[in-house]
Structure formats: structure tokens, C-alpha cells
């Protein structure tokens, strides 16, 4: 059963990523990206990284994707519904992709994957992450929080009562 779900997620990721890359409607591409992000979140769950999976959804789907959609809708004239894109420099692209593929395959193939899988028991990750954030990575955590607070204050300043 779990394997079946895994394959569904796999197909979802590949299909939506293909749609993002090859689709010629920009808006469709952006919404297809949602499938990729959600699929990756599913993969995280299979890796027992539940917290990371949910963070993936909240940051990428709820945040970055919405930002992308806004960006596209606001930069183009919103009265024309269709915005098409077409791939350019296909030859160069194929070359780069082939190179990347070679590197990945040379790294992946020599390894004996099936034999090395040992099912791991599910451990709660939230508490560990929290503990680490407040001990080993406290300074980084504080810097990030100050950064975010700055962003919040900036956003609040932008939201004026009088437009």
C-alpha cells in the first residue's frame, strides 16, 4: 500500500514538473508547480521528516507559490488571460541536462540500493528540531527571527490606512 502511494507521488512530481517545464501557459506552469511542491512534501513524509514536509507546504505552497502567482498577475496586463512562454536555446538546454544526468547517474548507479534499505522506525522530529534550534543553533535562530521581525515591521509599514 505504502509503495503504491509512493509511486503515485512519484508520478505526480514528474508529471507536474514536466508541465512546469514544457507547458506554454505561464499561469498553468505556476499552478503545476503546486503539484511538484506537494509531491516533494509527500517524499519527505516517506523519509520520516514530518515536520519538514509540513514546512515545505507552508513555505513553498502557501508562501512562495502565492508570491509567484501575484508576481505574474501584477506584472502583466491582467485583462489578457493567456500568457504564453516558449523555450529558447533548446540545444544548449539539452546539453546541460544531459551533463547533469550523467553526473547524477554516475553517483547513483554504482550503489546497491535495494540491499541497503533497512526500514527505520518513525521518530518524532519536532521536539528534536526545537531542542537543536534553542541549543546548538540558537544564534542562527535568533538572527533569523530578527530578520523576520524586520520583514514583518516592513510589511506593517507598507499597509497604510490611507492608500
Amino acid at each position, binding site marked *: *500500500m*505504502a509503495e*503504491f502511494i509512493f509511486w503515485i507521488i512519484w508520478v505526480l512530481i514528474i508529471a507536474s514538473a514536466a508541465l512546469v517545464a514544457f507547458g506554454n*501557459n505561464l*499561469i*498553468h506552469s505556476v*499552478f503545476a508547480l*503546486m503539484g511538484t511542491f506537494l509531491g516533494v512534501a509527500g517524499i519527505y513524509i516517506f523519509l520520516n521528516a*514530518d*515536520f519538514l514536509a*509540513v*514546512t515545505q*507546504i*507552508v513555505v513553498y*505552497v*502557501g*508562501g512562495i*507559490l*502565492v508570491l509567484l*502567482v*501575484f508576481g505574474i*498577475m501584477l506584472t502583466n496586463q*491582467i*485583462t489578457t*488571460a*493567456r500568457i504564453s512562454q516558449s523555450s529558447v536555446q533548446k540545444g544548449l538546454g539539452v546539453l546541460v541536462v544531459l551533463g547533469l544526468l550523467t553526473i547524477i547517474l554516475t553517483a547513483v548507479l554504482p550503489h546497491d540500493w535495494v540491499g541497503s534499505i533497512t526500514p527505520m522506525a518513525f521518530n*518524532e522530529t*519536532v521536539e528534536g528540531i526545537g531542542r537543536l534550534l534553542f541549543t546548538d543553533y540558537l544564534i542562527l535562530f535568533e538572527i533569523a527571527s530578527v530578520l523576520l521581525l524586520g520583514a*514583518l515591521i516592513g*510589511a*506593517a509599514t507598507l*499597509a*497604510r*490606512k*490611507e*492608500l
Partner: protein
Amino acid sequence: MIQSLANWILSFDILAGMGNPVAWGLSLFVVSALIFVFVALNAIVLVYIERKVSAFMQVRLGPMRVGKFGSLQTVADALKLLQKEDIIPQMADKILFVIGPWVILVASVVTFAAIPFSDTLLAANMNIGLFYVVSISSIVVLGIVMAGWASNNKWSLYGAMRSAAQIISYEIPVGITLIAVVAVVGSLNLQTIVIAQGGTGNLFHWIPIPLPNWFVFHDPFLFLAAFIYLTGATAEINRTPFDIPESESELVAGFMTEFSGLRWALFFLSEYANATLVAFLVSIIFLGGWQSPFSTYGGAQVGFSILTLLAIMWTVFVKIKAKRLSIFPVGLSLVITLCAWLFPGFALWLASPGLFWMLLKVASIIFLLMWFRWTFPRLRVDQLMYVSWKVILPISLINLMGVAVWMWLTGEIQF
């Protein structure tokens, strides 16, 4: 719940042969279907209740024709919507137009997987439950933008843009408010949050008024946080006074303008699912979830005595208003209270069913939301942003700090 259902299926000799994965998959399907049925039925009931509540607030009767007191009206309406012609505007983006409503619906239904209905009734006991609910409901924005964009209608696009801006703005203060609660419990698991609110204690720890250990009574900051959360959540689910994205007097119907028939019904379904979700979250996080307010010996008897008092008041009210005597509720509650005082164990048993208390709390919150809707005018879009960024956000940040300081003062945490 999925695993226990699978185990239960496998415990039958005839079915044991199907093996664990199949049984597990079957249980998964059954539980998902149950959640969906709950959401669908919930919407049908809530639409009826909303119409009745609004009618009573507006000195009219509401639906009266279909069924007793119009109780089948929404069923009839749902059937009508199912039969309607499936219209997709010619200039619409057909793919997104079709997907949009489903994205919204799925996002709002899936969240119910983490909601504990009672101590045992829970689809998935997730240790990140609260975070899961918050993150999944953020997908709704995309569905709304999708629907609004695909309609290829200026009004729809305005609605979608307003909605996206609104939901994103209110997610931040709502999230910070929730963090305050998480800081008190030390867990994201909704079930743990509910269990942490069992028993009775003093109001705000020191004031000697015995109250249930709900977080709304935990400290003044969480008391305030409950209201902030309710406000922010009302805005997140686009209900009046924050129904700006679909404000029918300005944007016709906002992002729903071009939708009709079944697709429109999906919007409605998810709207009520979201309202219910907010009510569930408020009751789980601040009002003790499925915890009974009278869960202790003595408490139960007091509770039933209060019930009797209410029943007597109701009878007097009916006598004065309708000039007729209805003795039944008083009699019933008197008998129960008497039994409760005589047999304390019985009282405790009667007062403890979690599902009842959970749904009672949810119903009260939903009633509150309806009350808002039928009394307030609507804010303007810039005023809405102002409220979010300049009022609620600073308060929720201070609130978070206040909770931490309070816990340090009361000795719940040490450094």
C-alpha cells in the same frame, strides 16, 4: 483510528486473509470517506441553520415549506444544484476553472484528518497536527486565485486578489497566536493540547474562581489570544465582517461570480467546512476540546443543577411568551439531576461523552460566527489590511511575550 480500524477488520476470521496492507488501505478509504461525508452533511445542516438563525435575527421565518420547518430545504437546494447545467464561460481558462473549486474543497476537507472529535475519534494522531492544519489551509489561497483568474472576469479577479491578500495577511497574526498556545503545552499534537486542558483549576491560576483548566482561562494573555484568534480566523475564512473577497454588494460574488451548479456548491461546501474547522480549532485550542466542563465529582452534579435551572427558566419563558406550560424539559432534567446527586458515578458517566461536548462547543462558535455575519457591516479592503497589520499583529506579538512572562511568573517554566 485508521490502524485500529484495520486491526478490527483483520480480527474477523473471514477477512484476515486480505493481509495488512489491503486492510490498511481499506480503512484509509473508509476514514477519508467518513470525513468527506461529515463535511458534506455538515454543510447541508449548517446552511439550514444559518438560514434559520438569520431569519430569527431578522424577524422572519426562513425556510418553512420543504419538510417540517423547512428542514429539507437545503437538501432540495443541493439536489437542484446537482441538476444545474454545467456552465464554463467561453473565454475562461477551462482547466483551471475546473480544478480551482476542487483544490479549495480538498484543502479544506483534508485538514479534518488531524481534528480530534473525541478522545478516541480521531483520523490521524499527528504529532504536528496544529502545524499541519495551518499549512494545509494555506493551500486554499491558491485555489481561490486559480478560480478567480480562470473566470476571466474583472470582478472575479478583484475578489481573488483581495482574498489572497487577506488570507496571507491574517495567517501571520493567527499563527503567532497559536504559537502562544503551543508554548504553553509544548506540543503541536492537537490531542495532547486537548488532554492538557483536563481537570479544574483557578481562573488565571491565582484568582479563586474554580473553572475548567481550559486555556482561555489559563492567563489573561491567552484569554485575549482567543479573541484575536477568532477575529483572525473569521477573516481567514472570508466571513462577515471580513467577507470582502465575495462581498455581494461590491464584487457581485467575487471569485465565485462565474461559477454555477455543482462547482458553486463546492465553494459553499468548503466555505462551511472552513467555518467548522475554525470552530473546531477554537474549541480545541482554547475551550478544552472534547473535555467536559464537569469532568470531576461534584462538578458533574453542579453542571446538572445548572441544567435544571436553565430548564426552569426556559419553562417560565415559554409560559410568559407563548402562554403554554411545557413541563417535559423540567421534569427530565430534574430526574437526571436527582439521579446525579444520588449516584455520583452515574453523573460522571453522563457528563463525560467527549463528542457531545466537542460538538456543543463547535456549535456555539459557529453560532457566534453567524451572529457576527448577520449584525455587522463589512469593512473596506484597506481597513481590513490596517486591522491585520497595525492592530492584530502587534497585539499578538506582545501577547506571545506576555504568555512567556506569565508562565515564568507562575513557575510553569524555569530557566
